[in-house]
């Protein structure tokens, strides 16, 4: 057994059906000097085996903090509340928030069960060691008894799988000798070395050239087919969501404001924020003289928020006296499609 006996994990946590991950009422506060930022405010979502969920939102909406909280790598000035339930390969269910952040149990899960890739692959590697060294490290720490030679062979194989040409030469090179796209491939290879069931991708293509972006997305899709892992895909780009995900959750100001299947979100968006996002996508047949749509205003800073819909200041359909004075609970407008908006009613889809 790899988990730490000291941590009280004996009480069974329920995780129903084929869920791999369930986030229940997750709250994360960030302490910045004397101010407390409510970065994540009651987030709920589930992720099934083999499924890809897109977490979409502007910068600062809390999507990155949510993902890092799942892996347990938020910095020390973050505190969290709620439940993050995760089912391991052996079927045991953990509430990740109860685990000691850098304790034995959590560390054993990282890399082998939950893996994460980052926005800037160039900074995710230490410049001081060869790419091969940093890749085999993940095998060596999780599978004691593996020899360096064995680890190296597995790394070579992984590098080949992620499409790095001439891996025998590349494996002994340093990160600065790689291009950004190559490093992202290497990072994916590293994170998949120990066959995780959940891959969290935090804007994996944002820092890359457009042509490289498509290649990386294709690579992730094909690897998902091969390894069968679930992906939590974090992005601000609705275009990639359409091509990558099964379901979408739209985040705004630390809350999920709308969630549903890709079809539901793209064809039947209900929340004014989601609609705004979709409208601001440039279209192929758009008249060139026409200005691109932009949501007015900026994301407010989540400090000392009053009970209200987080979006009311920027919403074109804001109802004075309602939206700005009460918290809004999500309603299910069609099966699997939830909206956090006072304009939406139970079981009714707005046109």
């Amino acid at each position, binding site marked *: 057994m790899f988990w730490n006996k000291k941590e009280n994990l004996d009480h069974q946590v329920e995780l129903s059906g084929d869920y791999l991950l369930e986030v229940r009422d997750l709250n994360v506060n960030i302490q*910045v*000097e004397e*101010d407390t*930022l409510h970065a994540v405010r009651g987030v709920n979502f589930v992720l099934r085996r083999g499924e890809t969920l897109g977490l979409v939102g502007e910068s600062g909406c809390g999507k990155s903090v949510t993902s890092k909280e799942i892996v347990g790598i938020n910095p020390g000035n973050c505190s969290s509340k709620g439940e993050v339930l995760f089912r391991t390969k052996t079927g045991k269910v953990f509430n990740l928030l109860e685990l000691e952040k850098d304790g034995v149990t959590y560390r054993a899960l990282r890399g082998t069960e939950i893996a994460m890739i980052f926005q800037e692959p160039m900074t995710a590697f230490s410049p001081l060691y060869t790419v091969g060294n940093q890749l085999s490290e993940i095998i060596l720490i999780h599978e004691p008894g593996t020899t360096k030679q064995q680890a190296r062979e597995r790394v070579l194989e992984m590098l080949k799988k992620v499409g790095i040409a001439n891996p025998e030469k590349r494996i002994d090179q340093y990160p600065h000798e790689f291009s950004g796209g190559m490093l992202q491939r290497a990072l994916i290879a590293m994170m998949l070395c120990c066959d995780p069931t959940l891959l969290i991708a935090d804007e994996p293509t944002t820092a890359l050239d457009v042509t490289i972006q498509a290649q990386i997305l294709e690579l992730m899709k094909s690897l998902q087919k091969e390894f069968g892992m679930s992906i939590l895909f974090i992005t601000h780009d609705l275009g990639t969501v359409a091509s990558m995900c099964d379901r979408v959750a739209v985040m705004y100001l630390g809350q999920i404001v709308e969630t549903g299947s890709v079809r539901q979100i793209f064809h039947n968006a209900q929340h004014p924020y989601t609609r705004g996002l979709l409208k601001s996508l440039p279209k192929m047949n758009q008249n060139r003289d026409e200005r691109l749509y932009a949501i007015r205003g900026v994301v*407010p*800073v989540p*400090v*000392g*928020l009053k009970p209200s819909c987080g979006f009311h200041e920027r919403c074109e359909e804001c109802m004075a006296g309602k939206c700005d004075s009460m918290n809004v609970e999500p309603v299910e407008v069609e099966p699997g499609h939830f909206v956090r908006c006072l304009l939406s009613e139970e079981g009714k889809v707005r046109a």
Partner: protein
Amino acid sequence: MALFKKKNKERDDSYYYASQWQLMYQKFRKHKLAMASAVLLIVFYTIAIFGNFVAPQGTEQFSGEYVNCGPTPIHFFHEGEWEGPFVYGLKRDRDPVTYMNIFVEDTEKICHIDFFAEGDKGGEYKILGLIPCNIHLFQAEGDGQVFLFGTDGMGRDLFSRVVLGAQISLFIPVVGMILTVALGLLMGSLAGYFGGWVDNVIQRLIEVVRSFPNVPLWMALSAALPATLKPAQVFMLMTIILSLISWPNLARTVRSQFFSIKKEDFIMAARISGAPASAIVLRHMIPSFLSYIIVNMTLTIPSLIVGETTLSFLGLGLRSPATSWGVLLQETNKLETIMFYGWKLIPMIFVFLAVLAFNFLGDGLRDAADPYK
């Protein structure tokens, strides 16, 4: 970081429109130690400027009677009676153990302290070098003596010497700093802007100067000064020597700043729009690291204070009768000073405070200037 005020709506819009300097000032004010240091330095410099008024004795005065006299305590009560601030008269005695001359208080004789005392006891001076005046902040009445910090081996009041020494010890570094910054900025910008062989030559020069240990090089250069120079000339030359050695640090940073900024888009934009080189450097490049230069200026001063003090202490800088803190400390290089005349170490406290205050100030400014903090 007061980035996030309590309520969004109530957040002061001025934050967003504040200039770089206002932001720096707001952040600087939060740095308590740096604020305290700034206040202390203002006090020091004010006292130094009005030194002749604050000091009860002028530079040229001494009283041969009171050689190596310890600090005279200031009393308020005589035999339980309120008297206001006064000192007792001094009488000569011999230490029963060491048989050395010492001074003891003559409790029979009370000398009150006069404030804003007029009289020739402290000598005449000119306010800011212009207006003749003979009023001093305080003086003992009659033939009483106030030696707050004791006297030196020639019977000069150490407190007055510290105050008057500050005029040199605190102002040489400022002049030196201006020279240093001018030189460092010039060399750094030349190297950074032109690159190529200019850069190569300047870099070699920097490397050569940096290869010498500071103090030994200072020592060698000042030793070469002819002994016949007047104090004012020594003052000038020392300032030049100190700054000749301190410029490379700034030059190096300015150079590397230039190299990194040269590639920035706004410089490229200025260049494409046909701005002349001088305008690009003066209007765009230097302002973009001005805050850095100011921090560097603040941090150059303490190293120059140390330089002047060290050189004078070693007998290679200013020499008596010129007065600077380093000159005052020359006496502490003798063993008996440490053993018998502990008060002569007092000037050290001021060197220490001035250096520390400048360091804290520089640190506070650096934190304030860092846009990411």
